[in-house]
């Protein structure tokens, strides 16, 4: 039985408020951004700004400092490092907790999830403190074993590595959460049967457990990738994209152009690039996921 009150209009009455909220504050802003990416609008001049076609995109792609390939490279290293690190750590931890008693598992899970609820700004300051040349824990520990202090955040290679580690810290919890949920749904009999057949633990993991949680693994991979692309707060409060744009990602470039240079048109163009990259990833995920589903049903 379906509710008869208000007849066919009922669901739409219920949906009116949430849909309005999403249309006005998510869909409309994106639509405006696509429009403004083809104009020469600035913060002071939003209305009747001249059309420049693809001019903004050309300016960004050919910009010298920072060069677009450079920004794209930093973004890729940062996202790739986050993906590999948090997927590896999160999955390995989920597997380790899987074989513990349920009570021990839930206590440990709660501790590992602490970084997941912390503000990205606070995570940024926490890790900036860790890497501080004078009072950071990293150099203090190095000093104990007699290694010279390292200026972590002012050198390109160490800065990117340090930031990737901080972002893995921030994002492995969500992978752990997804993978733990998936592992809890693997039928115990499947694992026991492998054990009865005399398979080693490594074989059980490789042949039974991992294949049965593939969809969750893909989902975790997408979430980790998006959270790599998404990082803004963490880099903004640690290096600010510096030194000299060396740790600047697409998100930071978008913010810098829009605010410091008040160039809405170019800022919108970088946003469109970032948006399209994320959308491509999401579509790729949906396609892979559909194919996986077909395999299993």
């Amino acid at each position, binding site marked *: 039985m379906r509710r008869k009150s208000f007849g066919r209009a009922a669901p739409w009455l219920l949906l009116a408020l949430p849909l309005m909220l999403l249309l006005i504050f998510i869909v409309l802003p994106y639509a405006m951004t696509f429009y403004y990416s083809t104009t020469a609008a600035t913060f002071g001049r*939003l209305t009747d700004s001249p059309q420049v076609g693809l001019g903004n995109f050309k300016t960004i792609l050919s910009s010298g400092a920072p060069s677009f390939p450079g920004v794209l490279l930093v973004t890729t290293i940062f996202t790739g490092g986050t993906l590999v690190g948090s997927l590896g750590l999160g999955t390995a*931890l989920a597997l380790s907790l899987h074989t513990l008693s349920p009570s021990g598992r839930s206590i440990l899970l709660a501790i590992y999830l602490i970084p997941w609820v912390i503000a990205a*700004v606070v995570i940024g*300051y926490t890790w900036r403190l860790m890497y501080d040349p004078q009072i950071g824990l990293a150099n203090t520990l190095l000093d104990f074993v007699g290694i010279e202090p390292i200026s972590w955040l002012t050198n390109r290679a160490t800065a990117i590595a340090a930031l990737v580690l901080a972002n893995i810290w921030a994002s492995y919890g969500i992978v752990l959460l997804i993978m733990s949920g998936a592992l809890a749904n693997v039928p115990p009999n499947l694992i026991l049967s492998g054990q009865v057949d005399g398979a080693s633990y490594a074989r059980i993991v490789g042949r039974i457990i991992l294949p049965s949680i593939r969809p969750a693994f893909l989902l975790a991979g997408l979430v980790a990738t998006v959270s790599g692309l998404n990082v803004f707060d963490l880099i903004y409060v640690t290096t600010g994209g510096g030194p000299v744009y060396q740790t600047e990602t697409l998100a930071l470039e978008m913010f810098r152009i829009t605010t410091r240079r008040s160039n809405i048109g170019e800022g919108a163009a970088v946003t469109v690039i970032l948006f399209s990259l994320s959308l491509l990833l*999401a579509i790729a995920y949906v396609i892979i996921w559909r194919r996986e589903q077909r395999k299993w049903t």
Partner: protein
Amino acid sequence: MDLVRFTRWQRVARAAFIVAALIFTLLPLSWLISIAIRPSGTAVFPITLLPSTVTLDNLREVLVGSDRLGFTPFVNAALYGTSSAVITMIASILGGYALARYNVRAGESILTVILALSFLPAVSRIVPIFILFSYSGLYGTQLGVILAYAAGATPLGIWLMAGAFRQIPIRLEQAAHIDGAGVVLTARRIILPLAIPGILVVATLAFIDGWNAFSLPLILLPNQNVQPYTVALQKYVGDIGFGINWPLLAAGSLLGLIPVLTLFALLQRRLVRVGGLGGAIKG
């Protein structure tokens, strides 16, 4: 019977890995706390691993001292987080119920679009919201920030609430209907009480998102009196690598941590249970 039989070495390796991950997780936070509770003169090079004396002076200085942030930035963050949680809750209950209970022909596609929206990286919304608000006059207003947070948290909220409502047997509603209960009474007495666990999770996630938000208020709120603590903390940061007041910055960060950690400790079981599905989308 154990799920998997391990050799002794496998047990040792597992324990070592779990402990190493615990250290990795807790060490940075311990260092932050250890700097926040040192007398400010002792947080200098060469630094000791453990503080020699423990003090709450830095926390006091952040809240009421001469170099204070004051209570206002924390009150602001709480106001934005709570308001956004209330709006998100209402929108998610309405939307989730409509998608769970009615055979809307467009329902499936609406749900898919909502799911896709929750996958979009939050950072890609900063500039679009900035453009919309500059255009419409919401720029610099507290209402604008609250609505922007709520819109960000609503897709996941609707998705979670639709799941929560599907778990409530429709027969309960039918029974109430037959007994003569109207729509409002059924909602108040039957549906909402049963959906409370889901509603709590949606509200908590929205509050945490709002309390933690940085990039949106950074770009949308130029007026210092209405900025949340995340933006106000920058007061203690000078130019890069130079002039950071670490004891106060650490103490201020700690004050920002305490509410979310308390909430998480209280609700972690519920958050973890739905988090497996929902947190996934949070990204």
